[in-house]
């Protein structure tokens, strides 16, 4: 039998809308962003393009001596390096709980744990601003029950970022939990049975069966968490506006303010590219590290 062929143009008709949209409204702007980052495009250029000048890598070298940028970089790394692992540990813990053989009402609890993920970030940031209120907030009230004195979460530069991390872990742990649950289901049950026959205790089974078998899942989860956490924006925007004393100013928040509040778009584009580069290097490092372990 001769297979009837689709016509030569058919695939391109199906692809055209998506390709045109992605090309014009994503790939083109990404390329243009690099060009923008080597110019001094600012408020005046918005009105009159002819004043734009080529400044080479000037925006990039200025960033290094800009204390705001260095601070934003440090804040973002703090958020990624502390919040990322905390949120992965919370996800794994929750996944182990809802996957336990004897756990009751698994799907109910899975839904509950996932609920914060689908909530609107801006709205829960408003809620958490109040949860973290020094005098009336639920968190300090609960800590008070344990005999801990009230913490000025969002007013103290030392505590504002930890507060945002607490909120981010609460908001996000359900997402990675679902991925871990799928990973746990793929571990063959006979591995556990064999370990049990050998007399391995729960902790040893976790350490020597679960963790090694979860390695690919862990790698995937840490890469997407790293990528997501580097893009910190709405939490500080709503909860702290980057304060107090710029202690929660993130790279994306700084980019937003440079670009869309002060209209220093050349500078903002350079910030965006530095963020991109950091994310690339971070992802590559993780992939290399894991490969090295194997």
């Amino acid at each position: 039998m001769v297979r009837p062929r689709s016509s030569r143009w058919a695939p391109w008709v199906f692809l055209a809308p998506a390709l045109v949209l992605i090309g014009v409204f994503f790939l083109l702007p990404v390329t243009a962003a690099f060009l923008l980052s080597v110019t001094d495009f600012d408020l005046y250029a918005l009105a009159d393009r002819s004043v734009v000048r080529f400044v080479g890598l000037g925006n990039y070298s200025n960033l290094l001596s800009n204390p705001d940028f260095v601070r934003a970089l440090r804040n973002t790394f703090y958020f990624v390096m502390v919040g990322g692992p905390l949120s992965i540990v919370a996800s794994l813990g929750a996944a182990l709980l809802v996957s336990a053989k004897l756990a009751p009402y698994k799907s109910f609890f899975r839904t509950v744990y996932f609920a914060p993920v689908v909530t609107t970030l801006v709205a829960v940031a408003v809620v958490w601003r109040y949860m973290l209120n020094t005098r009336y907030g639920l968190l300090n009230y609960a800590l008070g029950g344990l005999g801990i004195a009230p913490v000025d979460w969002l007013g103290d530069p030392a505590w504002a970022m930890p507060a945002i991390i607490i909120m981010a872990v609460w908001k996000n742990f359900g997402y990675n939990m679902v991925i871990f649950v799928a990973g746990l289901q793929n571990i063959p049950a006979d591995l556990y049975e064999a370990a049990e026959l050998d007399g391995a205790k729960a902790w040893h089974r976790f350490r020597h069966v679960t963790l090694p078998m979860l390695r690919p899942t862990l790698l995937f989860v840490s890469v997407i968490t790293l990528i997501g956490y580097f893009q910190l924006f709405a939490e500080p925007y709503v909860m702290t506006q980057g304060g107090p004393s710029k202690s929660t100013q993130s790279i994306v928040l700084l980019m937003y303010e440079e670009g869309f509040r002060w209209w220093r778009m050349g500078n903002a584009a350079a910030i965006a590219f530095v963020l991109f580069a950091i994310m690339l290097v971070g992802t590559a490092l993780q992939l290399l590290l894991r490969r090295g372990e194997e």
Partner: protein
Amino acid sequence: MSRAIQRRLLGTALAVVALVTLAPLLWMLSISLMPAGDANVFPPRLWPRQVTLQHYVELFARLDVARYALNSAALSVSVTIISVFINGMAGYAFAKFRFAGRDSLYRTLLGALVVPAQVAMLPLFLLMKALGFVNSYVGVMIPGMASIFGIFLVRQYALSVPDDLLDAARMDGASEFRIFRSVVLPVIAPILITLGVFTFMGTWNDFMWPLIVLSQEEKYTLPVALATLSLEHVQDTELMMAGAVLTILPVLIVFIALQRFYLEGITAGSVKG
């Protein structure tokens, strides 16, 4: 340890984590029903002394929340329909048509996934400005209409559509669009629902891009309006909680109704990704 005790311990641990997870959301709901000023007391009230809907009334009557909700709903529904259609066609084409350059084109698209959306935002804004789309719904919608992740999701699923089915339809002289509509769509419907749920929630919850594009208050989406209001009404806790409830409720309902599709989307993206 006996199984009964283990089961009880697990149940307790699960319940405690559930309580901690739900506490902020339940408290939000509870405070939104309290009379003004009742949230600012120590020790914090967990339940309203007296239930009132005054803040919801005020949000609709004085702060025009119905308009923002309508904006959000119209935008999210439109982007969802358009994106399901556009990404559905593209994903199917990558999965089932053979044409020159297909694999390298697909690989290029997947490669572009590593570029964070923020990189494109500045020139995208200038482009929107040049096209006259700033402060318009079209401007908000455009970046969400085609998504590389959506194409990827559909393609993985559409690979399982049997070629024989398509060939048989072609033998019958059906046009490619007809085949797509009546043969392919029913088969890939589950993944399109998944994509639809993802897109709806993503658009509803999106904050940064609408914040950048929209300058006129009456065009704001719910999250942008809520963020703006919450910076103006820092003291009106009960009012802001009611606003948060209204913003979160629609996505929560969509999630609970369609969670099977949503959760499958996450695992499909992770296993094959």
